[in-house]
């Protein structure tokens, strides 16, 4: 029997498990298996190995599920507690933005008056006005960064001990 036939049988065996094969191919494979003990044995062993994978039991550590449930509940509580704070932060940002837009002409006048009084170049007090507007955004970004760095520290347990 030529090596090509065994190779084809092996390919069809694999294909049957991955994508399926046609009826004609199945018939050819069946006929080959009846003639070739080597291929039949290999197919049987592969079947056995895959079946073993399905049925094998890896001992589950006692208490792992309850420990995980406890941690998940704790984290859920933490997230619930943090949610109103986060909402308050966004609300404060929104309100300050609206207030900023509404008061922009007055603030502009104040900066202009102060700039002229102090003898500053126009560009400087205009820049000052621009920076004044970014303060709420900076504040929000700082809070979010602080939160994420705290979260990063909490997740460090995974990389520790490696």
């Amino acid at each position, binding site marked *: 029997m030529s090596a090509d036939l065994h190779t084809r049988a*092996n390919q069809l*065996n*694999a*294909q049957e*498990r*991955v*994508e399926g094969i046609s009826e004609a191919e199945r018939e050819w494979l069946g006929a080959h298996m009846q003639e070739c003990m080597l291929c039949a044995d*290999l197919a049987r*062993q*592969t079947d*056995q*190995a*895959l079946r*073993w*994978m*399905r049925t*094998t*039991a*890896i*001992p*589950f*550590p006692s208490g*792992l*599920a309850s*420990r*995980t*449930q406890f*941690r*998940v*509940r704790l*984290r*859920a509580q933490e*997230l*619930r507690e943090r949610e109103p704070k986060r909402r308050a932060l966004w609300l404060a940002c929104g309100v300050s933005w609206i207030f900023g837009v509404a008061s922009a002409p007055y603030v502009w006048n104040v900066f202009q008056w102060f700039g002229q009084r102090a003898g500053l170049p126009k560009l400087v007090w205009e820049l000052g006005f621009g920076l004044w507007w970014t303060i709420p955004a900076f504040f929000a970004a700082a809070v979010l960064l602080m939160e994420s760095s705290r979260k990063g520290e909490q*997740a460090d*347990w*995974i*990389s520790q001990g*490696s």
Partner: protein
Amino acid sequence: MPGPTLFFSTLMSDEARSIARGVEKRDPDLLDRLIERYQYRLFRYLVYVTGNKDRAEDFFQETWIRVLERGHQYDGKSKFEAWLFAIARHLVIDWQRSKKPQSLDTLTDPHQEHPLQLANENDPSPLHQILSQEQEENVQASLEKIPAIYREVLVLRFQEELQIEEMVGVLGIPLSTVKSRLYRGLEALRGALQRGPA
């Protein structure tokens, strides 16, 4: 007759949608039930991909924390377990990246010897220690010889019985790559079985 198939697929998608609603709301009772329901499968998968029982325990807990935090990302259109395994897999990969930043390529290149790093093959691996209680030493030894990236697809397909399309979601690779890894995995398994236990 499409009756039973349609019935079960509707039932499954209804269940997936209700899980999606629950995890989005961070329902603690639902999460408790899910942890219990998927504990063995998730742990088994993690043992196979990490090759280390203690590490698998850590990742097991961290996976469920991620499920809680990222629950809103699960849309219920795919099986919950596929999403769960994808989270677990990403955690393992992230950890390996942080551990070995110089070997990023090995995580994605299937031709590297151990893309998902396992213990030294010459030592009795933790995976071996865990599985050695089983009778089928020969099969076990053969499975251990397969590179982790191929063993992983075999585990997902033949142990967790995921569809190839679901595996695409878990592994984040194209369908053709999933298939080629499955073929290579089966070929590696066949080769290992032929050679027999070392």
